[in-house]
């Protein structure tokens, strides 16, 4: 496969102004990924600052309730800043520092990646600007405050649908304005090469740990790994070290919003077609003339019209399967996990929990399922309360 390509997907479809920046990034990453000193520093940060390894927890009550596969939860919600996003951010911020950059910029949907970036910027003394859809700044007001508290400038983006896609576009525009001292910490396995590869490598720690932890607890591989998919960074992280283990079912759970037969959906594999956008060739929700669709999901983090190129390829080859989960199902699962296990998952992660509730009973009691709980749900409580008709203030 050509470098930077996953089958036909991937590539570098960006303005010439950014080309030297991504080439420079590729060169730096190729060097530092094999640099023992860089890896020692990163491992130290992941362990002592982010709190890795994250726990692999046996969800006994949920397993009993569903009556099928034995269910383990990979607790990325227990990481510092409350989500898997920190894994990638620490790696990229350290890389930016090694490259001599003094400023980082980032897009954010739910705000988790923005918070993680603001955190790493504070830790490493970098200037930080975060772009967030105006709609999302309302849905996730608490995270906006957290970013400001951490010293970042938050720029609400009012173009387009005022959501994640527009935040990505605006961060790309910002990068073309100021490149020399600035690194763009892309938050998902998307965008132009080398971002999908860099982000995947930094997130692959999730599946590496799952494999080791499950080997220790059960002495074997899981039968299925489930994760939610927007751009797809927590999912690729949870899948990566199992891709060669063909007996492990890999299931990505997309946000169907109000349903894949409605226009209010963000399920790219279910409703999108091949296209070129945000620097990559992949699947995108779009109309017959290639105009990007104004997608919708209750989850600001999954509310994106595309999917990372490696997922598109895993879909093409049949190695991973992608299912769609509605708002209603995700909200039910959000409440279910809270009551069943005393764990409030992010509404994004609740999409994976929702599908697990369907899949686990169909599996045998001797089988094992791992659900990646990509983040914690505190940020979502007010929005879910409103969804249930309860008007609370954050």
């Amino acid at each position, binding site marked *: 496969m050509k470098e930077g390509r996953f089958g036909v997907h991937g590539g*570098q479809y960006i303005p*010439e*102004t950014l*080309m030297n920046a991504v080439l420079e990034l590729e060169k730096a990453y190729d060097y530092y990924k094999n640099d023992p000193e860089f890896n020692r520093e990163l491992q130290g940060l992941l362990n002592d600052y982010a709190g890795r390894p994250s726990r692999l927890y046996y969800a006994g009550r949920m397993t009993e309730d569903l009556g099928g596969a034995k269910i383990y939860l990979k607790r990325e919600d227990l990481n510092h800043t409350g989500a898997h996003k920190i894994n990638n951010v620490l790696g990229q911020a350290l890389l930016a520092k090694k490259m001599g950059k003094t400023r980082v910029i980032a897009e954010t949907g739910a705000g988790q990646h923005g918070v993680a970036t603001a955190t790493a910027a504070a830790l490493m003394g970098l200037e930080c600007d975060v772009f967030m859809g105006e709609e999302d700044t309302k849905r996730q007001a608490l995270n906006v405050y957290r970013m400001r508290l951490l010293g970042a400038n938050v720029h609400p983006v009012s173009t387009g649908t005022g959501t994640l896609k527009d935040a990505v576009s605006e961060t790309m525009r910002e990068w073309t*304005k100021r490149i020399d001292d600035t690194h763009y910490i892309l938050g998902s396995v998307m965008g132009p090469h080398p971002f999908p590869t860099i982000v995947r490598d930094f997130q692959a720690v999730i599946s590496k740990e799952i494999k080791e932890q499950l080997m220790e607890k059960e002495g074997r591989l899981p039968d299925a790994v489930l994760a939610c998919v927007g751009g797809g960074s927590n999912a690729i992280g949870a899948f990566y070290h199992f891709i060669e283990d063909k007996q492990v079912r890999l299931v990505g759970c997309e946000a169907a919003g109000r349903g894949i037969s409605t226009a209010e959906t963000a399920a790219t594999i279910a409703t999108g077609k091949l296209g070129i956008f945000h620097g990559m060739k992949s699947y995108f929700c779009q109309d017959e003339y*290639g105009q990007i669709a104004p997608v919708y999901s209750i989850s600001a983090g999954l509310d994106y019209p595309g999917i990372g190129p490696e997922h598109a390829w895993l879909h093409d080859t049949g190695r991973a399967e992608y299912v769609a989960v509605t708002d209603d199902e995700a909200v039910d699962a959000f409440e279910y996990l809270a009551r069943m296990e005393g764990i409030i998952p992010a509404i994004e992660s609740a999409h994976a929990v929702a599908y697990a509730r369907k899949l686990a009973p169909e599996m045998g009691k001797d089988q094992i399922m791992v659900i990646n709980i990509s983040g914690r749900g505190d940020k979502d409580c007010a929005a879910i309360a409103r969804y249930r008709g309860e008007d609370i203030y954050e």
Partner: protein
Amino acid sequence: MNRIESAFEKGKAFIPFITCGDPSLEITEQLVYAMEEAGADLIELGIPFSDPTAEGPVIMDANIRALAGGVTADKIFQMAERIRTRTTVPMVFMTYANVVFSYGTERFIKKAARVGMDGLILPDVPFEEKEEFAQVCRKYGLALISLVAPTSRERIRMIASEAEGFLYCVSSLGVTGVRSEINTDVGEMVKMAKEVSNIPCAVGFGISTEEQAHSMARQADGVIVGSAIVKLCGQYGKDCIPAVKEYVRRMKAAANG
């Protein structure tokens, strides 16, 4: 001589950009005739895209207005075909990769060539990805226009050596839009390009005043103006034709002053 080459035969070329369908395709068509009369040497017709990542607010808004008015690639092809029966002014499409790709790259390029377009500019297709589009463009005789930017440095020679039609020299960092000052050494960019190719070089991004047009034209073979014209279209709506015509006349004169 092809039509794009002829655009650079009448002194410094003045190249205006307009967004198709803003405010309507009827006005877009009239604008083409008016701008040609006013001295435009080559016309860039923007096919609107929902999420134009290389554009500033002015052209972004024009895209949104045009799409809200129901403009599609097919309607634009029909308009271009009508225009070509009445004028030989060189015309190129400027749009984003997904507009071409989703239409079917070959189907799009074949149609563009058939209706009389001369070239295609895709700001999100850099040198590394161009072959996918360039090979089809070559087959149908359309020039795929290459861009160089202030950050291109050593890439300029590589890009210029394979450039077709004209070389689009991006004057400034950032997205499209009016700028009060242009600090890039455009002359140096053009010089590097000319070392490897005799391709005409046109400078765009940020140019709006006669003074800028004059100064940029001295360093290159032509100037491209987008946002300043699109702004007039936004400001005057269906009555924009006289204002745009007068502006183009002044800018063409300034570029050659």
